[in-house]
Each structure stands twice: as C-alpha cells, then as structure tokens.
C-alpha cells in the first residue's frame, strides 16, 4: 500500500523537529490565550471547532437513533425539535462556517503568500474570542433548555409561538457573526496587501483565490444576519412588529433577510473546500491545475452569484411566480462555475502521475459527493421539483451531500495534507487511507437512502414516520454509525501522531507552495527571510530544478 506514494521523509534516525518553532516559542496557557500568531490562533480554532463538532455530532447521533423506529420511543417530540435545532445551529454557525477559514485559512494564508502574519493579528485574536463568546451563549442556551425553532428561526414561530431560548441562540449567532466579519476583513486585507515580492495575483495558489471569495461573502452577507438576529431579539422582547402580521409586518421579510445571509453562507461552507481540493488534486497528480484562471475566477463568480439566489429557499412561501422564476434561473447559473471547477479538476488528473495518498482519497470523495450534491441542487432549483420535495428528506440529503460530503471531506483532505506542516509529524498513512474509505462508505450509506425517503415523501423535522419508511431509515442510521467511526478514527490517530508520528521534514509531499519551503512546524515569523516568488503556482519543474541545485551544492561539500 505504501509503495505508491510521493511521500519523501527525512532519515528518521537523524531528523529532529526544529527546536525553534511557533509551538515551542512560548509556553503556558496565557501565551496561547494572548497570542497574536496566526498559526496559534488556527490551533485554537481547531480545538474549539472540534469541541462544537462533538456536540453537534452527538445531537445528530441521537436524532438518527430516534429515527430507527417509526414511533417516538426514545425522546419526546419537544426534545426531538430541540435536538435538530441544536444540531443545525451548532453545525452551521459554529462548525462549518468557522472551520475552514478559522483553522486552515488562518494557518495557511500568510504562509502561502509569503507573509509573516495576517494583516491584523490583534483583530484575528479578537475574532476567535468573539467566536468563543458566541459559542458560550449557545452552550448556555443548550444547558438551560434549548431552542426548538430549527436553525432557520422562521418567523412568526420564533418570535411569537415558542417559549424556548431563542434570544440566547440569536445572541450567540449575532456575536459569532462579528467573528466571521472580522476574519473576512482580515483575509481580504492580507491577500491584498501582504503578498511577498513577486507573488502576483495569478501566481497565488487557488486556495487563496477561494478564500478570497469566501471573505467577500463574509464581509457582505454576515452583517445582514447580524441585523436580522437583532430584529428577532427585539421582536421577542419589545414587539416591534416588523415580522408581526397583526401589526402590518411581514414574516416573509425575515426570511428574505435571513436567506440573504444564509444562502451565501452555504457557499462559505463549500468554497474553502474547493480551494483545498485544488491544492490536493494538483499535488497528487504532479500537474498544474488545468485552467488555473478559469478555476480562480469561478470562485469569485460563485461568491458573486451567491447573492442572487436566496429566494430559492422560499418557493413555497408565497413569493410571486415571476420572482420565483428569476431566482430559479439564477440558482441554476451557480452550477456553471461549480461545474467549471469539477471539470477542471478532472482534466488535471488526465495524464497526471497520480498517487492515492490519504488527502487524495478524500479529494476523490469530495468530487463525487459534491457532484451529487450539486446536481441535486440543480434539480431543486427547478420550480416543479422543488415544490414537490421541499421540506422532505430530499433537501436534507442534498445539503448534507454538499456540506458534509463536500466540505467535511475537503477539510479532512486539508487537515491530513497540512498536518505535517502544522505539527512537524506525519499521520499513519495506512490508517488514514482506511479512514477516508470508511468515511466515504459511511456517508453514502447514511445519506443516499434519504434521497429516496424524501422523494417518497418523508417530511423532515418529524420523529414519527409511516412504518414503510423504516427499512431505509435503519439503513441510514447504520450508515451513520459507520460514519462516526470515520470521524473517530482520524481523531485518535492524529492525536497519536502528535507524539509518535514520523518526522515529516519541510516538504514531505514534494509540494510547490511557499508554505512547504519553510521548516515544519514553521517559525513564529514563518520564514527566516521574506521569500521572493519567482515562478508560477504549481510549477513542479521549478521544484525539481531547486532540488537538483541543492544536491549539486551539497555534493562538493561532502567530499
């Protein structure tokens, strides 16, 4: 298994983790909590988002267990409502949105563009604290009784009819929103102003392009969710009437505001993944990404289009037929840049010299699952189909294919790919491949039956269902338990590798990005000297020339 690999590790007998690096620079809890180092903040994000992932995952496990039987025999209807609301709120706002920017974005953007840090290091730390404070509000909300509106806070349910902790949940999202805003500002400014000499826009790794697009969404969309959460809170506390039909307000206005953020936010949950996949696909097929410019601009195009599609969440809610038609058309347009990416990744593989290391396996999983998720998205964008399957498990399966099958696979690919850079040590390769395969199988087993369930008409958000749906639900739940192993296994071996993994050296993957041209783990200031970018991105010939030159330099001195 391990013969077909491009990993080149240093001699394990003599190799050492560099004594001076960002992890060893200072010690003690305070040095972490007050750090302004983007790499340490990334680690902080990794720990906190993993914590929220465990909570959201536990809620999902309970939901799936409950759905094993057609009757509600484990939790009450009330508790079930709270479970899926908590699952949604935590997974969307406290895992999927912050995970890729917070962890990989923070760690890699300065390294990839050859900067010493993000442009605004203190703001960066502040945004982590805001994220944690927002998370604390959610924890408070959960401990003191939870919320049962679903993650969408649909009015007038959330403002007039439920007595759960809507205000706590909304406050948490409001505060965490500012964390996203500050991260977005930070990334845009960093990418504009902090690039190393020679790092032109079209020499940037595609990872950077997709994070740039993500940041545009952060900056333009997140303020709108902030104001809608403020309005929800005020509506509950004072009764301002903006969403209250008895006072002339319109509940639909809330949905417009909410989805104006939340639809672009869906692309926040996939665009960074696309950036990761571009890096991984290119590296493990030893080829420059096919159609670099097209892939770069398709990221920006997705970000721009994402602002014109929000009402496709509202086709059944009484919006006018003409606007529904337009939004349907715009929603289908998003498929174009997404398809550009998938085709270009496939074309990159063509005649590449492909190896199936763990990140690449996850990347293949991503392409397949994202394609299914994306194509069902086009199906849902057509009005007739959407009205038929809205609020069924078809929708649930569709967005889990994109968010979990897509984004989580991509994040796992990225985490494995950059793990040696973050920690200086390799994860165990064969276990990694095993976990990638388990994740893929478990995921499909969990969510593919849900497409069928939804098409047959099983509505989402109920824990009772007709007995004829049981077989598929049991299949889905058993898939979920396999999926859980697919998450636990990497968690275990990644922790194990912190101490016992093989020493990775600077560039175990023979990758071309600037982040690989410095030590692992990097110094606090990233590079000993600011690098000069004198070649295109993904220039594997340049890499070979470099290593040839190095060998030539080393040869005479050995004699």
């Amino acid at each position, binding site marked *: 298994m391990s013969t077909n690999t491009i990993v080149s590790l240093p001699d394990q007998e003599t190799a050492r983790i560099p004594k001076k690096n960002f992890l060893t620079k200072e010690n003690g809890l305070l040095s972490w909590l007050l750090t302004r180092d983007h790499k340490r903040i990334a680690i902080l994000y990794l720990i906190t988002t993993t914590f929220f992932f465990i909570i959201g995952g536990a809620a999902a496990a309970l939901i799936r267990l409950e759905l094993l039987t057609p009757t509600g025999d484990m939790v009450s209807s009330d508790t079930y409502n709270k479970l899926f609301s908590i699952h949604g709120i935590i997974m969307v706002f406290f895992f999927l949105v912050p995970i890729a920017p917070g962890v990989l974005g923070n760690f890699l953007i300065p390294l990839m563009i050859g900067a010493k840090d993000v442009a605004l290091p203190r703001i960066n730390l502040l945004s982590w604290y805001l994220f944690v404070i927002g998370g604390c509000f959610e924890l408070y909300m959960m401990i003191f009784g939870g919320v049962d509106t679903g993650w969408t806070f649909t009015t007038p349910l959330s403002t007039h009819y439920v007595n759960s902790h809507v205000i706590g949940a909304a406050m948490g999202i409001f505060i965490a929103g500012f964390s996203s805003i500050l991260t977005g*500002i930070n990334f845009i400014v960093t990418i504009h102003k902090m690039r190393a000499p020679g790092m032109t826009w079209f020499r940037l790794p595609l990872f950077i392009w997709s994070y740039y697009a993500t940041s545009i969404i952060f900056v333009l969309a997140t303020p709108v969710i902030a104001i809608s959460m403020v309005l929800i809170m005020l509506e509950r506390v004072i009764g301002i009437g903006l969403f209250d039909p008895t006072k002339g307000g319109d509940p639909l206005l809330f949905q417009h505001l909410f989805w104006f953020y939340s639809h672009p936010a869906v692309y926040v949950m996939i665009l960074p993944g696309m950036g990761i996949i571009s890096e991984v696909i290119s590296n493990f097929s030893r080829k420059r990404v096919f159609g670099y410019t097209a892939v770069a601009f398709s990221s920006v195009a997705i970000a721009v289009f994402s602002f014109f599609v929000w009402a496709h969440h509202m086709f059944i809610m009484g919006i006018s037929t003409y606007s529904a038609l337009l939004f349907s058309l715009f929603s289908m347009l998003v498929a174009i840049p997404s398809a550009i990416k998938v085709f270009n990744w496939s074309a990159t593989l063509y005649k590449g010299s492909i190896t199936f290391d763990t990140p690449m396996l996850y990347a293949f999983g991503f392409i397949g699952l994202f394609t299914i998720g994306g194509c069902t998205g086009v199906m849902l964008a057509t009005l007739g189909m959407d009205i038929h399957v809205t609020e069924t498990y078809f929708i649930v399966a569709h967005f889990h294919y994109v968010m979990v099958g897509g984004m989580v696979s991509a994040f796992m690919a990225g985490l494995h790919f950059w793990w040696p850079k973050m920690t200086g040590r390799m994860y165990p390769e064969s276990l990694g491949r095993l976990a990638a395969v388990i994740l893929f199988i478990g995921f499909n087993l969990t969510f593919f039956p849900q497409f069928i369930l939804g098409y047959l008409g099983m509505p989402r958000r109920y824990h009772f269902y007709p007995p004829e749906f049981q077989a598929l639900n049991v299949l889905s739940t058993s898939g979920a338990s396999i999926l859980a192993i697919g998450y636990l296994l990497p968690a275990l071996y990644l922790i194990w590798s912190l101490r016992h993994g093989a020493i990775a050296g600077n560039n175990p993957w023979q990758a071309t990005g600037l982040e690989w041209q410095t030590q692992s783990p990097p110094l606090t200031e990233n590079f000993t000297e600011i690098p000069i970018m004198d070649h295109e991105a993904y220039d594997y010939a340049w890499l070979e020339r470099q290593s040839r030159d190095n060998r030539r330099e080393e040869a005479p001195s050995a004699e």
Partner: protein
Amino acid sequence: MPNNQAIVPAASEPAGAGHNEHPSYLLHHFQSVEQQADTSNFAMWLFLLTEMMFFGGLFTAYLIYRNWYYLAFVAGSHQLNVVWGTLNTVVLICSSFTMAMGVWCAETRRRSGLVLCLILTFILGLGFLGIKTIEYSEKIEKHHVPGFHYNLSSFLDPASDPEIFKEYHDKPLPLDIARHTELYFSLYFLMTGMHALHMIIGIGILGFMIFRARAGAYISGHVTFVENFGLYWHFIDIVWIYLFALLYLISRH
C-alpha cells in the same frame, strides 16, 4: 533534508539599517510604514462596507413598509420635529468638519490643535445625543414607542395634537391605516437607535483618543488611527443624513 533551501532570500536590509527608517510603531509583520498604513486604511473601508450592509437590512425593511403604508409613514413623520432634526444634522456636519481638521492637525503634527479638534468633536457628538434624547422623550410622552402601550390618538384624531395639527392640518386616518404608524415608529427607533449606538461607541473612542493625544500620541507621523476613526465618524454622519431625509422629510418634496 530535501528541498529545504528553496527560499530565495529577499534583498532586504537588516532592520534599522540604511535609509530604511524603522520607527517604533511599525509592527513586526509589516515591511514598511506605507504598507502598514495602507493595510489599516483598507481594512477600515472594508469595515465600513460591512456597516453599510448592516444598516442595509434596516433600509430594506424601511423601503418595503414605506411603499406599503405610505400614508401611515407620512402621518408618522409629521410627529417628528424637523427643527430638532435639522439642528442635529448641522451639529453632525460641524463635528465631521472638526474631525477632518483633527486629522489634518495630526498629519501636520500639531498637538494642541489635534486635542482641541477632538474635544470639539466630542462635545458636538454629545450635543447630538442630547438633542436626540429630547426628541425621544417627546415620543415617550406621547406614547409613540412601539410595544409599550402604543397610542394611536394623534393619528385617529389629529386635532387632539394642536401643535402638529396647526402645522400640517392632517386629516384623521382610518384605524387600519393608523395602526401602521407603529411600524413607522419601530423603524424610526431602530434606525436612529442603531445610529445613536454607533455615536456612543464613537464618542467613547473619542474620549480615549483625547486622553492619548494630550499625552502626545498621533503626532509622530503615525496617524492611521486618527484617520480611520475619522472615516468612521464621517460614515456615521452620512448615515444620519440619509436617516434625516428618509424619516423626517417623507412628504416634503
């Protein structure tokens, strides 16, 4: 180790050497003072963009409800005091002028001028909030605060409100239209309240800046903080000008 020498060293001079000035305020991760100033300026503009989107949600709600309930919005706006509103607009524009002078003083390294300008801006900002408080308390007296025993009598029977009736001669509104004035006042309090919150934050920062400026900060060529705060202050000013036109002057064209 393979490939670890791939970095081409930049032709940079050691810190502090040669003509490259390396002042104490230059943060370690920037190459030059210009880069640092550019960066924080750019970040500030982006932040203002997010603020625009934040207020944008409220403006959207305003736009929709004003179109639906135009008569109620006109009647509601007649309850606002245009004199106070105009005065407040003048106060804010003056404060923007003193703020701009403050930035100029910081750039030209005039400490006492800077402190004076900041204090003037501070006072004008407080003046704005003072006038806003007078306006708010008028609304509270008339029970025009949505959600708290909102009172419709000024719209059902305009003659019961002689001062305003004298000026506008409004006709009585039917109940179903008059009810929608509550939405107008919701938006009025939301938009001006959100604006006032930004003012309060701004005044807080101004206090901090006055304190620092008296100790001699911002006049050593590192003026980005003053500049960026100026941008923020002008932004609030512009938001107010829109609010003034949209809330006070609905039927005056």
